[in-house]
């Protein structure tokens, strides 16, 4: 799955959800993964916007800031 790749197909997204959840100690069965994949798809659309935005390598991530 590429960064912000909203076209990632359902099977790949499902496989990603299963493997990534397993990595953090969550075992999800097929039924449990369906809504998780739906949310991942929404997140992927948001990530696609972020991915298309111009940022420099030198840009600092926003800190928890105070002025």
């Amino acid at each position, binding site marked *: *799955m590429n*960064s*912000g790749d909203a076209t990632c197909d359902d099977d790949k997204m499902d496989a*990603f*959800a299963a493997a*990534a*959840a397993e*990595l*953090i*100690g*969550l075992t*999800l069965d097929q039924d449990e993964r369906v*809504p*998780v*994949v*739906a*949310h*991942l798809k*929404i*997140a992927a659309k*948001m*990530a696609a*916007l*972020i*991915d298309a*935005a*111009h*940022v420099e390598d030198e*840009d*600092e*991530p*926003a*800190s*928890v*800031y*105070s*002025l």
Partner: protein
Amino acid sequence: MSDDLWALSCADVAARVRAGRTSAAEVADSALSRIAAVDGALNAFTLVTAERARASAARIDAKRAAGAELGPLAGVPFAVKNLFDVEGAPTLAGSKINRDRQPAERDATLVQRLEAADAILVGCLNMGEYAYDFTGENAHDGASRNPHDATRMSGGSSGGSATAVASGMASVALASDTNGSIRVPSSFCGLFGLKPTYGRLSRAGTFPFVASLDHLGPIARSPEDLALVYDALQGQDPADHAQAHRAIEPTLPSLKEGLDSVRIATLDGWFAKGAEPIAYAATARVAQVLSATRSVTFADAELARAAAFLITMSEGGALHAGRLRTRRGEFDPDVRDRLIAGAILPSAWIVRAHKVRARARAAALKLFEEVDLLLAPATPRQAPKIGQKTMILDGIEMAVRPNLGAFTQPISCIGLPVAVAPIWLDGESLPIGVQIIGPPWREDLVLRAAHALYEAGAASAPIGAGGSS
């Protein structure tokens, strides 16, 4: 008159109690009676602290009888979203899981500050589970209901806070706002809400959601009440490491100074599409009253919203990963599934979202070189029906839950202070809110603008009768 004390503003209650025209005990009894009369139908409270309220009132009355000067919130009944620690009670944060937590050993800093100003805590309030919500619905406690139409959403996640204030069960409530959780309920329930600048108020003693986005603030029925309470909430607290090093900057003294020479513009672009016409009509009404004739564009608004969306999922998912492993079945399924997805998002997305957030913030600050205040709708529509899952905006059907915050998320993502002004357009039985957005640390200015609208009769917060019959 004592029967109607619950309907008074914070300012009126404090003036009466300080002058000895009304006792704090009478005010507490009136508020508790109001809660007993209407909360069964509105479902705002998860805990009523009646014994503590009566003890506080007795202390305040004794203090006055001894000749001591009372605080600026003398006798004001307040309640808090149940993510605030209240000594002796488990901090629920809208969840079933947290009912097993040990009772809080001390009050949250902001609760302590209001009591130090002689306000009276009357209870803890319903909220969306772990604050991941825009609806005011709760799978465990039921929905808090809108006092202006009990079939409608109160808004989330601080739904109980808005329901309590809009129905007169509390004069003011404390709430949190990560993506819009003060502003959405204020819009739906017709209240004035203040989301201060990120880092302004201490969050110590509250259950977190997204540390880099969490704000706390008050919801009330007038800008004067907001200013009175907000001023009492300010001040340094070493227990909150994210709090900015700012001196107390009182807002009440300048509240009535007016807006001469204040430059105000309406936000277009992202904020001018994707909503029902009434959201724009309300914003136009505010612009007219405040003589705001120009528009400006926050070009990175959509990006800021996307960044907030991803950061929220990720930080929220990480916060709850342990509970998702061990107690997954006890979450509201809608919340659980988003948290799981958030916990496994690719880190490259999140780091980039933070960079985009910084860029969006810089772009927004640039706007404030040209203007002093910005206007935008608070929500894309009035309160939906409780249980409603989808809505149609601009001809597009979309899910209700994630999209009610489309106009609030870009602003909290970059930490700007916002006051919500409740607008009742002619012929409408439900309100809708407008955001008044200021540059960092100018809570005084957003409250002045809200007050100008209140004085002009353009914004108001009548008490709802829903559930009182």
